């Protein structure tokens, strides 16, 4: 169990490898291979010897670029336990961007997907590359053989009787040393390298031990990208330090696959982006609630309660039936879906954070969760709304505490723009805060529009309403000549399912319908349909700055 008082992540990992030596650690969901903690520890040992043979030192940068897998997890643990600086890179970046990022972060070694084997022209590769698919040299050569020979020799010398649990030893980390360099994809421009020290993740682990289920025998189902701090901290690192069994989804999280996995794994808690729950609710619950008979029955007080209980029960079973709560984060949850989840009494909560805080800033347990809120200041963090009247006038969320980054790598200007002289980190998100300290996000500061009467307009609110009350899957609201225009997109797949075409959609009728759900200062003057989905960052956020 993760002790609330213990702070060294590496010492905790050492303990867990020994304690859980014979227990299952990692499974790629749907594959027949499961690594026990012993197998993970041995592969970590091999990596350390390989790093040593290559002359890599603690503090050097090691890039890891691929989608989620057990091997990704092993590679990450190997880098961290070596006290090298892990640079997780999303595979969605183009080859050119990856090359640029590797050069920017000064990586000495790269663990990547085989598609990147020729990232550098032959002979110019500044790094020894390992294929994350099987953790073997990506371009076998006499050089790689030589390095491996050295590693094998070291192993024979150091562990003549084999590697046993008593030999697992990881040096404790220095809290102020750099642990992770995480590139935020930047919906407005070039990626920035967020420098997270060990203390940030130590503090995040303390928060998790205090707030989340905490047992050695947890089953976890991972669908969030482990290269993102939300998934990295609370799906991966926290659960490994608890000694849990992690089932990793290596495919696209389609609802059918996810629901099958829930039944088989029965996770102890579940982390996802709101879109996943929105899809489940739209597919499983909304059609039931939209039936005319159900609308009548809902008006009968006793029946209303019974129906809600039944929906909650079925939804809980669909998600494995064993979870403490579902935690959503990374984007705003549709108000409509949140209303339904709340109405049926489903165990869910919404957290708020950012890479720059590794990631947690605010959170509340599902029992305390308030509609529309993303919780209260997380453990160890000071959070406030920078506004003369935080309860009524939205202001920027600013925060301070051990979770905070050191700054942006090689970008002093961006660091100075984000962390002020008093040490407050400016999140760029606007919110209000109620009298009990719960935060309610309104939108991004940089996206805020000024209405005709000087009223602040948060396009995200209007976009949420468009997506909730129309067939459109994506929306960006822009301002043209003082009027709000919604750029909207529906996929061919959905059009096919609905048996219609883009041309047949009555945009004017949809606009009028959506406007019924929007305040007067936020009325849409026009809906403009796009034939292609919006361009997105590797994190799947729309690159809004491209749309005017």
């Amino acid at each position: 169990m993760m002790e609330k008082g213990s702070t060294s992540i590496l010492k905790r990992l050492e303990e867990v490898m020994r304690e859980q030596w014979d227990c299952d650690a990692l499974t790629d969901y749907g594959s027949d291979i499961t690594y026990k903690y012993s197998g993970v520890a041995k592969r970590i040992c091999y990596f350390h010897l390989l790093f040593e043979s290559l002359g890599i030192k603690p503090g050097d940068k090691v890039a890891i670029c691929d989608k989620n897998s057990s091997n990704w997890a092993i590679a990450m643990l190997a880098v961290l336990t070596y006290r090298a600086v892990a640079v997780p890179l999303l595979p969605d970046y183009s080859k050119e961007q990856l090359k640029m990022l590797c050069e920017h972060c000064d990586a000495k070694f790269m663990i990547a997907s085989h598609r990147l084997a020729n990232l550098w022209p032959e002979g110019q590769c500044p790094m020894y590359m390992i294929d994350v698919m099987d953790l073997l040299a990506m371009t076998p050569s006499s050089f790689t053989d030589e390095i491996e020979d050295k590693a094998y020799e070291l192993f024979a010398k150091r562990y003549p009787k084999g590697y046993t649990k008593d030999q697992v030893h990881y040096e404790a980390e220095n809290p102020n040393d750099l642990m992770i360099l995480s590139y935020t994809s930047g919906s407005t421009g070039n990626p920035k390298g967020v420098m997270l020290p060990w203390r940030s993740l130590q503090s995040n682990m303390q928060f998790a031990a205090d707030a989340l289920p905490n047992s050695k025998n947890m089953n976890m189902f991972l669908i969030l990208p482990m290269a993102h701090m939300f998934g990295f901290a609370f799906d991966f690192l926290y659960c490994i330090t608890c000694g849990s069994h992690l089932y990793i989804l290596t495919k696209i999280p389609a609802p059918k696959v996810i629901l099958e996995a829930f039944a088989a794994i029965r996770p102890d808690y579940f982390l996802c982006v709101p879109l996943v729950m929105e899809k489940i609710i739209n597919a499983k619950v909304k059609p039931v609630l939209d039936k005319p008979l159900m609308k009548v029955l809902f008006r009968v007080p006793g029946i209303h309660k019974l129906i809600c209980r039944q929906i909650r029960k079925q939804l809980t079973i669909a998600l494995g039936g064993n979870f403490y709560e579902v935690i959503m984060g990374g984007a705003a949850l549709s108000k409509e879906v949140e209303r339904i989840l709340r109405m049926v009494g489903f165990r869910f909560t919404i957290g708020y954070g950012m890479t720059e805080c590794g990631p947690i800033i605010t959170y509340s347990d599902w029992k305390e969760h308030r509609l529309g809120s993303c919780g209260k200041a997380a453990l160890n963090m000071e959070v406030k709304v920078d506004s003369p009247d935080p309860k009524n006038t939205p202001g920027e969320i600013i925060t301070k505490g051990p979770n905070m980054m050191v700054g942006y790598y090689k970008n002093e200007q961006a660091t100075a723009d984000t962390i002020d002289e008093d040490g407050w980190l400016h999140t760029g998100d606007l919110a209000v805060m109620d009298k009990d300290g719960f935060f309610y996000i309104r939108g991004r500061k940089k996206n805020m529009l000024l209405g005709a009467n000087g009223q602040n307009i948060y396009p995200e609110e209007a976009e949420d309403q468009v997506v909730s009350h129309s067939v459109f899957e994506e929306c960006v609201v822009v301002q043209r000549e003082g009027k709000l225009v919604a750029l909207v997109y529906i996929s061919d797949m959905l059009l096919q399912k609905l048996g219609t075409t883009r041309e047949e959609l009555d945009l004017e009728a949809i606009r009028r319908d959506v406007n019924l759900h929007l305040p007067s200062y936020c009325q849409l003057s026009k809906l403009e349909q796009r034939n292609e989905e919006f361009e997105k960052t590797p994190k799947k956020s729309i690159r809004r700055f491209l749309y005017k």
Partner: protein
Amino acid sequence: MLGNSSIFATEIFLKPQIIIMVDIKNENGVYIASFKGRLDAPTAQEIQEEIEALLVHADKEIVLDCAKLEYISSAGLRLFLRIRKEVSAKGGKVSIRNLAHEVKDVFVLTGFDEFFDFHNS
């Protein structure tokens, strides 16, 4: 004379030294591939053809006899992994036998021992 012997010597010198051999036999429906020598990056390339011939029988039982395998690098491990994947996809069975202690260490160290059944004849 001197010229001739010099050419002969060069030919010998340039001829790639055979440091890996694979012998494939069918013993009562079980395909046994016996490896001899060092399995590293260049030699893994050398035996591609033999491996392709072996993988024609990926739906059957395959035994990789490593009694005379002296060394394996990641290129060799990748080759073994490929055999395992193909056999697994086609519904066959693969095991490794008679692996020398030092070579087995490489499997254990890299975690590849989890992917194979090992036995001694």
